[in-house]
C-alpha cells in the first residue's frame, strides 16, 4: 500500500498502483498515474478512460480486455476497437493500465 500526491492531496493506492477508494478519483489522478507510467494522456486516451468509467457506472465491473475491445468497437468504431490501437495507447495493457488510470479496480477476468 502506498500513496500518490495529487493537487496536494494524499491518495491511497494498492501495491499495483490501483486506487484503494474508487471515490477518490478525479481527472488529475489519471494525469498523475500516467506521469508515473510515463504516458502522456491525449484525447484518445481520455476517450477510453471515460468509456471505462461509464462502463463501470453501468455494470459495476471493470471489463476484461476482450470485452472492452468489443464494446469500444461498438461505441467508438472499429478503428478504435481493436487491440493494436488500444495497446498503442496503453502499452501495459488496455485492461490493466486504462482501468488503473480510470480509477477502477483491476479488471475481472483479466488473466
Amino acid at each position, binding site marked *: 500500500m502506498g500513496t500518490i500526491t495529487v493537487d496536494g492531496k494524499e491518495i491511497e493506492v494498492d501495491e499495483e498502483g490501483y486506487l484503494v477508494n474508487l471515490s477518490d478519483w478525479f481527472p488529475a489522478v489519471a494525469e498523475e498515474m500516467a506521469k508515473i507510467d510515463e504516458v502522456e494522456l491525449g484525447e484518445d486516451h481520455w476517450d477510453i478512460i471515460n468509456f471505462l468509467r461509464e462502463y463501470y457506472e453501468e*455494470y*459495476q*465491473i471493470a471489463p*476484461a480486455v*476482450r470485452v472492452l475491445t468489443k464494446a469500444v468497437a461498438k461505441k467508438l468504431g472499429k478503428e478504435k476497437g481493436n487491440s493494436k490501437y488500444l495497446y498503442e495507447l496503453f502499452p501495459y495493457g488496455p485492461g490493466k493500465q486504462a482501468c488503473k488510470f480510470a480509477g477502477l479496480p483491476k479488471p*475481472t477476468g*483479466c488473466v
Partner: protein
Amino acid sequence: MSDDVKKFMFVNTKAPYGTVYALESLEVVLISAAFDQDVSLAFCDDGVFQITKNQNTEGSGMKNFSPAYKALGDYDINKLYVEKESLEERGLTLDNLMDLTYEDEDDDWAEKPSIKLVTRAELADLMDQQDVVISS
C-alpha cells in the same frame, strides 16, 4: 480446439447478500469466460434472488453488484437457467427478474434473452450433461 472445450455449469443456490458466495461465484464465472469454455449458469433455491430486478443494498452497506449480471452477455455467457419451482415457491415470476440479454453474433447481432425457465427435472438433465458442475 473442440476437444478442449468442456461444459461448465455454475449453480447458484444462495441469496445475493449476507454471504460472499454469489459475488465470488460471479467473479469465477467472468474469469472462466476468458478460457473459451462452454459456460452456463443455473439459479435455484434462494439463488433466484441474485438476478431479481431493483435490488437495493443501501441498508446493508454492501455493494449492489447485480448490474454485473447484465455484462454476462458481453462475456458470451448467454445460458442462464432459472428453475421454475424455485421461482414459484418464492412467489416470483420471470417479470421479477432482470432483463438479461445477449447479442447473437450469428443472427446479425439480434438481441435475445439469456434467461431460460426450466423445470427441476429439466435442470437435473442439464446438470447430467455437464463435464463440470460447481455449486455455491
